[in-house]
């Protein structure tokens, strides 16, 4: 740690927001099918996060950060395996068919949650600040998940184990940020916080735009398409099966997109 720098130690305590949502989390995790889906999703998220952090290890020029990122990535890959194995074990006894439905993904996100990470081109400081906040948020949520998992001790144990690693991840990212950028590390943290907020806004906006777009397209589908659909089906019935001859010169012009 940089001389004279006093940094708050990471602590295992959920944020007020996550504590407030505890009843929702309890409800989400109470159903085995949802639990399986969420664990599988967490498994994917952790593995994806591991790949991103591995990439960070590959692009940094700082040898100590490279080693730490690599350890971090290995932890994330292991978490992915832990989640998947636990989901597979639950799947074996639950006779679930992994059907889609409401799983509360937005309400109960995974390790790196919904954060999007662009590793190439990020400075070490930005990367560390981003990782620190992501790990902190994940630790807060995982603490709640662990606490609501009273009736499933094995899944609880998985969260317990992962939480121990998250504490290390939160700790090293903060101390390394202070080492790499002793004077402006707090500014980087604030920048990362604002960036997370901006990304959250973008996600929300694009999500709403997506819903609106789907709604409008669905209306168009039922209002405008039936006549064309009838024509398309009639044409399909008349289409011969088997070979279609390629007329000479069909692909000769490379200017056309159709």
């Amino acid at each position: 740690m940089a001389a004279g720098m006093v940094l708050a130690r990471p602590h295992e305590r959920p944020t007020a927001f996550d504590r407030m949502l505890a009843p929702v989390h309890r409800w989400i995790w109470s159903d085995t099918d949802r639990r399986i889906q969420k664990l599988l999703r967490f498994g994917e998220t952790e593995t994806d996060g591991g790949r991103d952090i591995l990439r960070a290890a590959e692009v940094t020029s700082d040898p100590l950060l490279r080693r730490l990122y690599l350890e971090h990535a290995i932890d994330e890959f292991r978490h992915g395996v832990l989640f998947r194995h636990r989901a597979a074990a639950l799947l074996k006894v639950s006779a679930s068919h992994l059907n889609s439905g409401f799983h509360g993904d937005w309400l109960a996100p995974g390790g790196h949650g919904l954060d999007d990470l662009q590793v190439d081109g990020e400075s070490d400081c930005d990367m560390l600040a981003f990782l620190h906040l992501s790990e902190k948020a994940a630790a807060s949520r995982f603490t709640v998940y662990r606490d609501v998992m009273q009736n499933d001790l094995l899944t609880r144990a998985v969260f317990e184990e992962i939480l121990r690693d998250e504490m290390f991840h939160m700790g090293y990212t903060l101390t390394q940020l202070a080492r790499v950028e002793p004077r402006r590390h707090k500014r980087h943290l604030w920048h990362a916080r604002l960036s997370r907020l901006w990304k959250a806004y973008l996600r929300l906006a694009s999500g709403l735009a997506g819903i609106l777009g789907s709604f409008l397209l669905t209306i168009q589908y039922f209002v405008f398409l039936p006549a064309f659909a009838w024509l398309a089906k009639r044409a399909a019935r008349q289409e011969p099966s088997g070979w279609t001859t390629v007329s000479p010169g069909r692909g000769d012009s490379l200017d056309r997109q159709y």
Partner: protein
Amino acid sequence: MNILGISAHYHDSAAALVVDGVPVCAVQEERLSRHKGDATFPMLAIESCLQQAGIEPNQLDAVVFYERPMLKFDRILTCALRAFPRSWRAFPTAMKNSLGEKVWVRGIISSQLGVPGRKILFTEHHQSHAAAAFLTAPTRRAAIMTADAVGEWATLSVGDGERMLNGSTRIRRFREIRFPHSLGMLYSTFTAYLGFKVNEDEYKVMGLAAYGRPTLVDQVRKLIRRTPDGAFALDLNYFEFHNTAERSYSSRFVELFGPTRNPYEPIDLDTAEGQRFADCAASVQRVLEDTLVEIARVLHQETGLQDLCLGGGVALNGVANARLLAESGFERVFVPPAPGDAGCAIGAALYCDRIHFGNPDRDVPDHPFWGPWVDGSELARLAREDSHFAVELQDGALIDQIADDLVAGHIVGWMEGALEFGPRALGHRSILAAPHTTEMRDRLNHEIKYREAFRPFAPVVPIDAATHYFDLPPGGKRLARFMSGVFPVRPEWRSRLEAITHVDGTARVQVLEPAMAPRLHALLEAYGQRTGIPVLLNTSFNLAGEPIVNRAVEGYSTFLRCKIDVLVGGGTRVIKRTSATAKTEAAKLKEEVA
């Protein structure tokens, strides 16, 4: 003349640069972005190609996209209309997906590269496959067959190609089979049914097939009937890929073949359920092979040609390729190193050069090494920074040392020269090991590749020794050049080549000519001198779910995360500190910084 070929937006995007009629660089986006199967617009790949050739975008004479986006959109829209009203869920997603980016390709290329719209051209998808197969093959005249899941409308096409004496080139497509009737979709549907990832894990179905018996062929033939003109048609009652995005098989399909496999449960081949899945794989594999062979046989009779060039994702099926060579009547079968969509980047660029611009034919170097080069000194620096043992050796000493390592049972991560283009590691980004025992196979599966036990490993053998160990038919050496065929291991060698002999006694062998990868060839010879068998196990240098490594640092980080014993990059050899020391150091590091 500088021509850039691009394939993008569906799976495995790539870029390729052809300068004065010869490819100078081709690379898949995933190798640079490090996202497996990256389908985004391949900006990194494009930059890499331009950088390697030392040219700027404004020096490009043409940029060719590998398919016609509006024709593809036409197919997507038409299928949605035909499936009305069942397609109501898929329709908004499909439209948002297509209208968001995929149909505006000319604008995207123009804005990303600053190239005027008039320089941006489009080939048809199967035209690109055909060009990639024919224009990279060392043959003057050949029949061409392309087969994949789907391009714009075509799913399979047949035709021929000819390099004329006056230097001009001709590629013709006689006829095609159109979506939704598709061999690729049939195989992918079984891939999904068997709990594997579509467009990624089809080779697992092929590997699994060897454990099964084709007892369900009659059921598979209910799904695909032959038409009177020699083509085929799928019975769409068994499929849903053409009208929903959720799944590719219908409830009738499940009634016919039984419950689907849970993708999170390993396949246990000792159970009846596991055997049923293997039998499904064997049956669809058999039907795929039969169909391809029959179509190719007719094509052979029709053209009277000796050579067949195969393209499209289906050409990655080495078992089918070997049957095509044995039974279709063609004497030689050419499969490019990247027959899938990534390879279309090179195909589109070459088609544009030879056919559109009418440039004279040029021989295309017959190797797969078109990517960025590895830097051995970078590897040495990284290893020394982390206190691993790194030495830089001259070629002869390095080869001797690595041969000794392999004889001692060490597993070697091997990086040299330019990165391979295509899905196979063909000796420049490979994991090499002794091929003799099942213990080695299991070690690789469990400690390095972290993959299913039923999947086989491939061997590499010098061309002069190939027929001694493998039962290669005439033309087999050519097909095995880029690991495109599966052939029997000679029975007398199977017990000494256990790690690369699949359960059915075959191997997807790579036959290596010295000129293609001289150092690997020298290593095979050195290994042969020590053991009497110049064969090595050769598998791609990556871990499960990751793309093949590209730069030294990626090989290095992979090396540190698994139990590869020795890493070679250029002339640098790296070995790890002992695992006990490494573990203690890692724990100490965690303690110190936490």
